[in-house]
């Protein structure tokens, strides 16, 4: 079984769960098997949030991750807490707009993504910071295709939100290695 496990963590409100959900939609539209599992707790503002996305060609057994192939740290505490989960050779994405420390692992590929700055300066909308990160994940891992994302946005951004599709597509391509 070649299940890819992606673990995304940060503060509540950073769009951590949304990044995961977008990946899940994309995988489904590419006819892959997928699960999305959020952390959950009492409704509370200011807490931490994380989610696990599993993507595979075959049915997925456990939707949980004790280790992962891709780790996304949207804030500092998440990097400290979860860095050891990443499998050797895995991809580590760090939101360097907020995370001041560097990765300690040397056996993984590390990508520093200045999400907030890129969102504000290159996309022109600070709220797209999480989509900048999603774009980086897709570009590096090819876990889903960038092309499918337009279809995803069309499904989830309906009504008045259709105007945001182009902006979000721009955000996905804003980061470059």
């Amino acid at each position, binding site marked *: 079984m070649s299940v890819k496990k992606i673990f995304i963590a940060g503060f509540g409100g950073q769009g951590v769960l949304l990044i995961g959900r977008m990946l899940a939609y994309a995988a489904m539209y590419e006819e892959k098997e997928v699960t999305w599992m959020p952390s*959950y707790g009492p409704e509370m503002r200011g807490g931490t949030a994380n989610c696990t996305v599993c993507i595979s060609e075959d049915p997925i057994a456990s939707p949980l991750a*004790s280790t992962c192939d891709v780790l996304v740290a949207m804030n500092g505490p998440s990097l400290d807490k979860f860095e050891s989960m990443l499998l050797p050779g895995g991809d580590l994405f760090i939101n360097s707009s907020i995370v001041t420390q560097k990765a300690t692992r040397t056996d993984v590929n590390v990508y520093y993504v200045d999400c907030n700055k890129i969102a504000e300066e290159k996309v022109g909308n600070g709220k797209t910071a999480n989509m900048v990160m999603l774009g980086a994940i897709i570009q590096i891992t090819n876990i889903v295709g960038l092309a499918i994302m337009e279809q995803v946005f069309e499904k989830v951004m309906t009504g008045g939100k259709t105007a945001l599709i182009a902006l979000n597509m721009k955000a996905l391509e804003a980061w470059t290695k």
Partner: protein
Amino acid sequence: MTEKKLMKGNEAFAKAALNAGCRYYFGYPITPQNEIPEYMSRELAKVGGAFIQAESELAAVNMAYGAAAAGGRVMISSSSPGIALMQEGISLLASVQLPVVILNIMRGGPGIGSIQPGQADYNQVTRGGGNGDYHCIVYAPSSIQETMDMITKAFEVAEEYRNPVIIAADGMLGQMMEPVIIPEAKPALTEEEIPAAKPWALTGHKNKRERIAINSVWLEQELLEDYINGYWPKYIKAEKELAEYEAVNLEDAETVFVAFGSTARVVLEAMDILAKEGIKTGLIRPKTLWPFPNEAFSKIGPKTKQIISVELSQGQMIHDVKYALEGRLPVALINRVGGMLIDPVEVAERTKKILEVK
């Protein structure tokens, strides 16, 4: 119709109930099942159904008692401590043979416990929980799709057997998202159709038939004994006809796991890890917890030397496993409790420990 949709478990479960013709839902907020009453509050009125946010789980189950007696297709849902509070009503439903589907999105106990996934309700859902001689029919799904399909079936089984049916899912299934195919929508019974479809239901005798009385109290114990003996054969029938399970690799396995619900998915991944190290394992996954699929254990091959029950409890199902095995094989337990989840690596490691000890 066959288009896949990415849905959160709890919303998918509510949608499945709606499509199965459920039109009455009564609930009370409790984590991790809140999306179910929330969905029902939005959607039921649109299809001519009714939602009440009850003042408690105790009220919710008794609203279900009323609606089911009146001939409605009813679902209620809660999570472990809420189900405990419903037990009075569940015993009552069973005593007067009313069909209600009860969705339990289980969490860690005892007491108020934790809001994270758990399976320590096994005893609560399979051993009655309420007083008296009765069983609940209990399904234990391991994916969102399977939960939806079991809900669809549960309404049919509940009405065929005139008995409460419990779906024992957990917080993981309720909170996660998976692509699903939504079961086709069935027409719901109209109020006019109830007397013919459910002749036992309270509809008013309209001076055309004798009055129906639904009662749970029997002041003459001889009559109660007759009554219980009268309905008991349906449980014998259920034991023969309703037990379901999934078996994986029983012929070849040296060790056979027994696990239900989301835990079975974790075990499947652990089996892959163990296979890579040359350890051959199999799995029995009960899809019904009552009746328990005893028959599955007769399919275990001669190579099997060890049985391991994997549970999110201190070992509750393990007693049914031992009973089914009739002492033929040693049974060990791998578990986590209190809302802690078990991961595949841990299952694999603890399995190796169990096998080495021998």
